[in-house]
């Protein structure tokens, strides 16, 4: 059963098309939906989590249509919005208890203890959540989301506002979750994190998917690696298949290659045998940032909504 499947999923707010004929198949592992602010990421998540009705098209989660069988969809998902909604006057354990009981778990004590342990919150479980750091609150939310063993988890900006160590920690936990066969659907605008942790990413721009694939695929598809070589003395030209000299300034020469890591030793050998004295070589792989900028194009800061559209968004959820 495909975890997430959308067909021509479209959402319009008045004449603003927030999500435009989205066709997406996501199954197992971490899928990252990337995009600039206002590109339709959150709207997509709201539709997939049955919180918002689409204008057109269909979406199904684990084989259940989000509009025809929303209860069944809600049974197999968890949704963690970006707001960090934790009851701060309740302890971690009490927060967990509320969620476990809402998910219909009759005797949740063991499950709660287990998950608090997994999320490294055991020793603070009986302190009020207001004493928790941002990272701890996020981990508590993840523990809550896991309590009914969902098949798909939706995370909206899971690491926003956290420090570097907390982010890495959250990612380690998210990765562990996928090992049990869960599907994680997340949004982010941290490209480095998406690059490092997502199995697949989709870049969304103006409600449309602009690029889709694994981070490595996208990077290699969109541009080749760049190798810069510093030599001593004069440069004796070399010919290697698949490599092109793109520029030379004094004794620094730049090459491009399909796969820089493999090309690097070949180039070093070739340069040496042609009589060059190589002083330094460096490889610059294109980052997901490059891919993002290339597929999204020149970005303008979104202007926000007009007052009327804002009201439409809030009220007209049909």
């Amino acid at each position: 059963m495909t975890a997430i499947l959308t067909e021509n999923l479209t959402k319009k707010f008045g004449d603003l098309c927030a999500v435009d004929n989205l066709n997406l198949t996501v199954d197992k592992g971490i899928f990252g939906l990337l995009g600039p602010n206002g590109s339709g990421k959150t709207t997509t998540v709201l539709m997939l989590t049955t919180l918002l009705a689409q204008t057109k098209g269909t979406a199904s989660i684990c084989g259940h249509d989000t509009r025809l069988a929303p209860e069944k969809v809600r049974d197999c998902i968890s949704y963690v919005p970006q707001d960090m909604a934790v009851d701060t006057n309740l302890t971690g354990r009490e927060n967990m208890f509320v969620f476990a009981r809402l998910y219909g778990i009759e005797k949740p004590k063991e499950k709660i203890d287990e998950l608090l342990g997994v999320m490294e919150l055991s020793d603070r479980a009986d302190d009020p959540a207001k004493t928790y750091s941002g990272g701890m609150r996020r981990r508590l939310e993840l523990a809550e989301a896991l309590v009914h063993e969902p098949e798909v988890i939706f995370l909206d900006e899971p690491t926003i506002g956290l420090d570097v160590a907390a982010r890495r920690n959250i990612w380690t936990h998210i990765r562990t979750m996928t090992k049990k066969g869960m599907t994680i659907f997340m949004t982010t605008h941290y490209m480095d994190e998406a690059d490092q942790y997502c199995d697949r990413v989709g870049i969304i721009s103006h409600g449309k998917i602009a690029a889709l694939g694994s981070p490595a695929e996208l990077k290699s598809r969109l541009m080749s690696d760049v190798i810069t070589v510093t030599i001593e003395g004069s440069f004796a030209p070399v010919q290697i298949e698949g490599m092109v000299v793109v520029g030379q300034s004094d004794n620094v020469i730049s090459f491009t290659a399909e796969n820089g890591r493999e090309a690097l030793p070949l180039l070093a050998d070739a340069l040496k045998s042609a009589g060059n004295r190589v002083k330094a070589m460096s490889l610059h792989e294109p980052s997901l940032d490059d891919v993002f900028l290339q597929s999204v194009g020149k970005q303008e800061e979104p202007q926000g909504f007009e007052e009327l559209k804002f009201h439409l968004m809030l009220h007209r959820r049909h």
Partner: protein
Amino acid sequence: MKGVSIYIYRDFIRWIRYRIGVISSLVLPAAWLLFVGLALPVTFTGNYLDFITPGILVMTILTAGISSGSLLMFDKMLGFLNKFLAMPVPRESILVSKILFVSMRGLIQATIILILAVLIGATVMTPLQYGLVYLILFLFGVFISSFSTAIALYLYDHDSFASFTAMVTMPLFFTSSALMPYSAMPGWLATIAHVNPLSFAINAIRDVTAGSIPVVPILMLFVFTAIFVGLAGYVFRKVTI
């Protein structure tokens, strides 16, 4: 309904941990009872305390009930509502739990007022009378909190909602029969007071304290409450899907 009790558990713990909120909700009605009930020099009734206690009970339920929308509003603003709506529990249980929680919280406050009133000289009633008073207050609480949640679902920020409740609460109280009987009011005020839902609940409680069982007012209160619960449910469904 599945989920209602656990939502109430959550709101209840949040309320008792927020101590100043508990204290203030008990101090305000007590202040009314003491400063108005004991101090006002009135001539139209023998025991003014007996006269004004129903009014203060209903006012307490009014302020308690109106906060139901506020609770829902904060859940909406802080992201809890979206989390809850994405869960397999019936969505309406969120609404039902808020209405029941604030109504019950109102009844806790009412109990304090009833005890205090007796301590400072009000007449002690029979258990049946107290039962009827609680029934009327509960129905009225459900009525007000349904109204309040319906409004909160329409307004999208807490400031608008706070302005709305401030605008509604005081005028409703002063144009009701809480402080004086119809006969002691100027004509225009009596006209308004007759159609004020607060007067309705207050008069029903006064009937009870006078020794009769106000069957028709209770039934009417029940009908109005049912209509408003239905209305809140309708708005809730409309806004959340």
